[in-house]
């Protein structure tokens, strides 16, 4: 139990997907201009990461390992992720139109979000059980969402600031992200998983 909790904290904060592992940076820079869009992207991505992590775990265990096809990992995983995204979109649209209105426009963008593929690949390297893998994926995704929302909040303030012309836009965002990464380094004492 304690180990699982530490593993989850480690995945969410210490080895944060965005700030420590540098996954999903495109969405980190692209969809964090407003808090609500960042939160929407975070929720959608959390969902997809968790679902596709389970699917990828199954593919790895029952198909690739079983037939010794490790080299097909990249191709099969991206195939599974793309399908999972598509599937998620259709289900959400059918089940909850409100949720779809919130997350709809972000879903297609997730296919090429490297956080999804990255987490799946990390799982395979970690050799986890299905439950462990699911929890790890969820925790990583939660950490991703957290950082997205925090950064979006910072950028909402940044828009109001008078930034030197040359630094306006992405450069100042990078520097702020660097400061945020420094802040997250403070978590490294919590857990070492």
């Amino acid at each position: 139990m304690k180990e699982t909790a530490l593993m989850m904290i480690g995945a969410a904060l210490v080895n944060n997907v965005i700030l420590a592992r540098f996954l999903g940076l495109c969405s980190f820079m692209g969809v964090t201009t407003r808090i609500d869009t960042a939160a929407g992207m975070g929720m959608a991505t959390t969902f997809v990461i968790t679902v596709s992590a389970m699917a990828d775990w199954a593919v790895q265990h029952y198909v690739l390992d079983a037939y010794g096809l490790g080299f097909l990992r990249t191709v099969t995983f991206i195939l599974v992720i793309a399908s999972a995204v598509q599937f998620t979109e259709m289900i959400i649209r059918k089940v909850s139109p409100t949720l779809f209105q919130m997350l709809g426009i972000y879903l297609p963008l997730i296919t090429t979000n490297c956080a999804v593929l990255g987490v799946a690949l990390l799982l395979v390297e970690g050799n986890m059980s299905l439950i462990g893998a699911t929890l790890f994926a969820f925790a990583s995704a939660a950490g991703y969402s957290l950082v997205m929302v925090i950064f979006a909040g910072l950028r909402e303030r940044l828009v109001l600031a008078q930034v030197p012309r040359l630094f306006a836009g992405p450069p100042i965002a990078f520097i702020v992200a660097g400061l945020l990464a420094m802040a997250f380094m403070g978590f490294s004492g919590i857990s070492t998983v």
Partner: protein
Amino acid sequence: MLSAVGTLTTMGLVLGGLLGTAARYLAVEENPIEAELQSLLPGSQCGQCGYVGCAQAAAALARGEALVTLCPPGGKAIAEALAAKLGIKVDLSAVADDGPRLAVVAEEICTGCCRCSKVCSTDAIVGAAKQIHNVIREACTGCGACIERCPTEAMSLVPLPVTLQHWIWPMPANV
């Protein structure tokens, strides 16, 4: 080799089939935002955006085919409202918004042909045949539809004159 091809093919088939079936059973028709967009547009059906009327423009916006800056009479205010409704961000500094405009009749050229009053979508031009026409300021949207129809080039658009009531303090110069 064969097992690799087989695996990929099987996965392709399974996933493709799954998605295809799902698409059939989970199909949902849309798009409720169109009506909301249309309510934001001026509704004068002037056609300056390139679509037949405001309803068509709203449909194009909902499909994502048109830019939110499509409505010249709406200016920045409508572009901003549309962007907010569609949940997108636009750079409005490029939108040419030289303020509301007004059609005026050059009385010495007007022949009283009534062509302009027929195209006016808000009935803002009054005047009987062979009488000099006039524009009702309050009703004119400045869409410019009448300009093209005038055979004697008596119609023109002028900026709405700035009065004490309309004057706005300028933004302070940036530091």
